[in-house]
């Protein structure tokens, strides 16, 4: 019975990993570009939620939307002011750009919110559901379910809608897309907005269940890499599947071998993946 509990816990956490990783894989798929500050976007999403709850007293729906929207705007701004120019630059400046951004966002958050761990005051979502002996804490449950729905939504948006096809067109062949009257800069800015927005919502959902501080962005960033690498670069459904798997592996390895080893096993898996199957489970080579 305990094992089932561990598995459920792992999947719920994995769903949240999937949500914010889907944002990262979207960018990678489109622009062959890794955003090293993606973890910081999740962290900012958490703080936005805190501000909304503290100042406006909004409920989960309110701060969820606020986090998504504010991060969307940040994502677009980051693209237009920095990434657009760096894309054509040498590899070193592409990597440095988002690294510098990560440091800037993290330590500005340190400055504004101080280093203390904070957590959302008890929101309406609390308590635990007991489904056949398996205990599912409501915050994690809600967060996990919404995360899965949003990831699928993002995937459908990409594959079924006009905007989605334009986004994919630009990622396939930027030149050809331009010939078809698609403005690549606008599409890529939109992609960065969506990616940051997904990270923002994931931050809001995690804020319900877990305390955080400005330095959590770093661990989320690395986890997102692993999920994206396992799921296949550029594949949102891949990220969803990989997110769940990573959540599961972390939970099981922590339970069987002890919590210290969960990160070691995940990173070892990541390194092995990069060598054996760089395109991941469902990504394009």
């Amino acid at each position, binding site marked *: 019975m305990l094992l089932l509990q561990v598995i459920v816990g792992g999947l719920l956490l994995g769903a949240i990993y999937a949500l914010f990783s889907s944002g990262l894989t979207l960018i990678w798929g489109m622009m062959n570009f890794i955003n090293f500050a993606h973890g910081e976007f999740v962290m900012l999403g958490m703080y936005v939620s805190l501000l909304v709850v503290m100042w406006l007293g909004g409920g989960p729906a309110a701060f969820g939307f606020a986090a998504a929207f504010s991060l969307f705007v940040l994502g677009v701004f980051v693209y237009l002011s920095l990434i657009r120019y760096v894309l054509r630059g040498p*590899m070193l400046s592409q990597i440095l750009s988002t690294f510098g951004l990560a440091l*800037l966002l993290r330590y500005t958050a340190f400055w504004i919110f101080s280093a203390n761990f904070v957590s959302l005051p008890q929101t309406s979502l609390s308590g635990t559901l007991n489904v056949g002996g398996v205990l599912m804490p409501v915050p994690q449950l809600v967060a996990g379910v919404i995360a899965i729905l949003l990831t699928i939504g993002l995937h459908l948006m990409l594959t079924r809608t006009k905007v989605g096809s334009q986004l994919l067109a630009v990622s396939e062949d930027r030149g050809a897309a331009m010939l078809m009257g698609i403005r690549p800069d606008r599409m890529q800015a939109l992609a960065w907005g969506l990616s940051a927005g997904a990270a923002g919502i994931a931050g809001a959902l995690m804020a319900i269940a877990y305390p955080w501080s400005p330095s959590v962005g770093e661990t989320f960033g*690395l986890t997102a*890499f692993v999920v994206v690498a396992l799921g296949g670069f550029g594949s949102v459904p891949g990220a969803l599947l990989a997110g769940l798997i990573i959540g599961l592996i972390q939970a099981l390895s922590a339970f069987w071998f002890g919590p*210290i080893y969960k990160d070691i096993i995940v990173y070892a898996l990541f390194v092995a993946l990069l*060598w054996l199957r760089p395109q991941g489970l469902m990504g394009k080579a």
Partner: protein
Amino acid sequence: MKIPAVTPTTLLAAGLLIYPLIFSGPFYLDIGVTFLLAAISASAWNIVGGYTGQVSVGHAMFFGLGAYAPLLCYTLFQWAPIAGIPFGIVFSIVLAVLIGIPTFRLTGHYFSMATIAVAELIRIYFGTWDLVGAAIGLQGPATARGWWDLTFRSELPYYYIFLAVLAVLLRLTFLIERRRFGYYLRAIKAGERAARSLGVPVQQIKIKALILSAVFTSLAGSLYSVKTGFIDPESGFGILVSVQMVIIAALGGAGKLYGPLVGALILIPLQTATNTWFGGGGTGLTFILYGGIIVLIARYEPGGLFELWERIAPRGWRRKNAS
């Protein structure tokens, strides 16, 4: 003996030689030593990251191994810490080959991510490994049992030892630049496919560059732990250790001989200054500054200060130096 031509190299060397005589206060010396250490590790990174264009963001793996070896020899066998330096270098070379072969099949972002993951993997593992003091880390000899413990009261001896190592590294890089190896490195950075078509054994050259870089990064790590007398997973393998090397080289000019030196010359005093002025206030401004500098480099001047200087330096002067 012939008077050395007054070129920037000799001027720079003279400046660095007499620095400890002008700024003799122990605190200034400590900054001088920190500057040299940063310049050595950034220059070592530069061989792989700058010249060859393989942006490793996990070079702390070699720095950490180099740092752990001396203190491990002291803790386990009571040897003088410097006896551990060769071991650090050997471990780093083995790691370089083990890591290099698979990761060099990857390019660009893949390669950077793989190096981050490997460095993190080692950092976390060392944090759980009791032989190396797990999370508590290792300490060196508190008081010197003899000169060989290299635990000096003043920083002066460290300064000149580190300066000598930096000089050797820069001289070696200078020679490489003019040899086939240096040309092949720059060819790989400019275009691997074209380089292969001209017979450049790309994988082999990359591994050799990584080994050379690992040797000096490991040496920098050893010098750090011998001087500080302490090492733990975070200060040995932490991601900030790797990031600092990348920033310093990129600020000065990655792929340029004096790039890392100039980068360290600016960043280390700046970092200490901000920490003195704002550090006491505890606002962590130093890192906001770091982040800001990197974003500006990436956005406006990827070539670093060198390229900026070459663009704005008077035309005639630059002609003479373009060889």
